[in-house]
């Protein structure tokens, strides 16, 4: 074995990884060290170095990061994730608020439109279809027969004058043909015309009398 080879193998031999060097090479290195004072000195020197390294390893074997680092990291972790949660909650709240505002505006607009279109076409009898809102209830006091006549109401067939007490006037949109369902005569040629009609609705919810608004005044 040459000195250069010994440097590579002899140090391994004296190191912690003896198993990594084949046994015959170890023997050859030992034989070389016995004959070569320089390599023997090198080996001894390495053994000294190894002892020193071992001492260094021992002094730092149980070294750990100081506890304060963990505390700082955990604190930072908490801050970071709390901040993220808060941000998420704020974004969610902002969106919820915006949605609520849009809904409120929509409902307000719809209500105002509803108010404006009060008395518009509504479905009435005979399957007549309409997208119009519910019929508007007009203010009215108790009726009697004399008032009925004065207000141009026509009592519907089968209704008695005394049944109109505490009735309410309801203005509805309907096709003229629907009047026939109330027992009124209808011009065959104008059955599909839309008209507005005031109905006098009794406490039982049934119409008792009817008038055409143009007759009212």
């Amino acid at each position, binding site marked *: 074995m040459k000195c250069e080879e010994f*440097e590579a193998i002899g140090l391994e031999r004296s190191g912690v990884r003896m198993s990594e060097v084949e046994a015959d090479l170890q023997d050859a290195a030992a034989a070389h060290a016995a004959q070569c004072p320089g390599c023997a000195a090198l080996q001894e*020197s390495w053994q000294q170095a190894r002892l020193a390294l071992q001492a260094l390893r021992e002094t*730092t074997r149980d070294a*750990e990061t*100081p506890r304060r680092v*963990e505390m700082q990291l955990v604190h*930072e972790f908490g801050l970071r994730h709390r901040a993220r949660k808060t941000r998420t909650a704020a974004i969610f709240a902002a969106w919820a608020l915006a949605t609520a505002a849009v809904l409120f505006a929509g409902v307000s607009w719809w209500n105002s439109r509803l108010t404006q279109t009060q008395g518009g076409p509504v479905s009435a009898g005979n399957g007549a279809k309409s997208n119009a809102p519910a019929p508007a209830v007009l203010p009215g006091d108790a009726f009697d027969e004399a008032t009925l006549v004065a207000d141009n109401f026509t009592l519907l067939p089968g209704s008695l004058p005394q049944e109109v007490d505490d009735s309410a006037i309801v203005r509805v949109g309907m096709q003229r043909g629907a009047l026939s369902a109330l027992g009124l005569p209808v011009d065959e040629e104008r059955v599909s015309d839309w008209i507005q009609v005031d109905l006098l609705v009794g406490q039982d919810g049934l119409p008792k009398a009817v008038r055409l608004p143009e007759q009212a005044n």
Partner: protein
Amino acid sequence: MPGGMSIPEQDRDDVLLRRAAKGDEESFTALYRRHQAALYRFALRMTGNAWAAEEIVQDVFMTLMREPKKYDSDRGPVGAFLYGIARNRVMKHLERLPRELPLEETNDDGTRASEIAVNSFTPANWAEQQERSARVHAAVLDLPAEFREAVVLCELEELSYEEAAQRSGCPIGTIRSRLHRGRALLMAKLEILRDAPRRVSAATRR
């Protein structure tokens, strides 16, 4: 971390990391406690400076906290990922070191004030061991970074060549040769420190 032991699913590093990324503090703490000591020892042995080692470990876990998605399980375990970050930070620290040295306080024997020694035996043993480890640590810290890393990984961390090569991201042959030259340089330095110059190995000549 013992390699052969089977770890319950919920305690696996990647599972802990996933949970930590979602804000689970306990998982983050578990991950930290599992890896901090090894990272700290590596950083300490490479830099010889407790403050720097502490900062490096903190930096590693801050990176993990900020960018957990940087970890790619296809490229290896979480431990190796953390070690990779630590290694980068150590190398950066070593590059900056000449500018930082004058700011370090030094002891009478020339070792840095922030160097730590942990074990305590009898006062005489302790003093002797302190002196020896301070001397060898100074010699290790004098080695060029790549040789120092090989010596730290193979001699101090007691990793196999294969493990050391994996960690350093280089072939086993490179680790072997770095270790060989690192040892030779180390011996030469220790000889000089002992005022007993012997044969300077061919390995120390570049």
